[in-house]
């Protein structure tokens, strides 16, 4: 029975990985093929809304089944709150780009929502780190923290170089721009540590949501670079962010299936 249970878990994981790859390829192909065309903005914005929307939908299913008590109840509720804020941010951004068709304001309500979303996301990451991160060596923590802090300082320096700090009107946009690498650094430290600590446990070997956070931070860093080098080509960033959102959705599907066992299965 134990062996059968393990094979079932393995089969479910393979199915999920295949499903994730298919979804990733389909969404990425759509974004790639419309890049540079008149549909680029629409496909880009709507694809991100669809992928983060799928993650929000799964997070609500998890809350409905699991409720909000216990370490996982609290952290997954927080994750859902973060995803809802990011869905709202993507929606507002799409409204600016597609609805208004005007110059996108910066900073905007979308930025406020994105930045607000980091807080519940960080609660999830740090809250579950004690569970997923047991056994991480102290020197690994130091190395990852120093590397991330170094990259954050490099990003902050690059952002500072494109703003006129003597102009009082540029101070708010500068402050908002600097918040992204700071929050990204705070999120990516536990994410990298957990991913390096992964691979063990039939239910826990793939840290889907932590992998997603690394993708978000890569996407954000590339977005920051476009600000510095002033390029308009951002379709590859949409592909990376979509991959992150789909990875979160996959992680929530896995959690919903494997961690919240149905009453029917429990009785068997």
């Amino acid at each position, binding site marked *: 029975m134990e062996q059968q249970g393990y094979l079932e878990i393995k089969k479910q994981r393979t199915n999920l990985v295949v499903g994730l790859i298919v979804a990733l390829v389909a969404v990425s192909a759509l974004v790639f093929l419309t890049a540079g065309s008149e549909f680029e903005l629409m496909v880009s914005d709507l694809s991100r809304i669809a992928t983060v929307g799928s993650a929000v939908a799964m997070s609500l299913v998890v809350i409905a089944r699991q409720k909000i008590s216990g370490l996982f109840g609290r952290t997954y509720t927080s994750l859902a709150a973060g995803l809802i804020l990011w869905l709202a941010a993507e929606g507002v951004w799409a409204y600016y780009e597609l609805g208004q068709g005007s110059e996108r304001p910066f900073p905007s309500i979308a930025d406020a929502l994105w930045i607000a979303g980091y807080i519940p996301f960080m609660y999830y990451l740090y809250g579950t780190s004690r569970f997923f991160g047991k056994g991480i060596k102290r020197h690994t923590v130091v190395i990852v923290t120093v590397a991330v802090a170094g990259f954050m300082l490099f990003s902050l320096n690059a952002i500072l170089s494109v703003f006129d700090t003597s102009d009082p009107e540029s101070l708010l946009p500068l402050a908002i721009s600097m918040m992204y690498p700071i929050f990204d650094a705070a999120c990516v430290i536990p994410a990298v540590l957990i991913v390096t600590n992964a691979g063990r446990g039939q239910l826990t070997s793939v840290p889907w949501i932590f992998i997603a956070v690394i993708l978000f931070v890569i996407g954000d860093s590339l977005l920051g670079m476009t600000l510095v080098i002033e390029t308009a080509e951002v379709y590859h960033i949409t592909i990376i962010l979509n991959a992150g959102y789909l990875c979160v959705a996959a992680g929530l599907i896995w959690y919903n299936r494997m*961690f919240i066992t149905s009453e029917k299965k429990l009785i068997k």
Partner: protein
Amino acid sequence: MVNKLQFGKLPKDGDGSQTVVRQAIDEAIGSLGGPIHKTIVWHMNNRGVFANPKKIDINFFYDNLRELLGPGADMIMEDTWEHLQKQHGVRFDHDFERKHSPAEKIQKVMEIGEA
């Protein structure tokens, strides 16, 4: 070898200490959330870990938990040990406490309780 164990409120008979350890495990798993508790217990039952409700082989439990949850198993063992310390006042001397894992300390408590 006596490791200056303080039993506190822990029963000094084998059955009593087994029951208390089992309760502490339940509390530790339960702190993750109700549905997760049910899932982990279900997996452990399928593996025969909780076959005897009055007796638990802590090493067998830990091995199976690690196989299922990877690093999360260590958090559960740590919380179980903390629960035994806080609720039942179980203590080892500082040296033993520092050098041994929660699973080893719980095992020692049960061995001494059974002796």
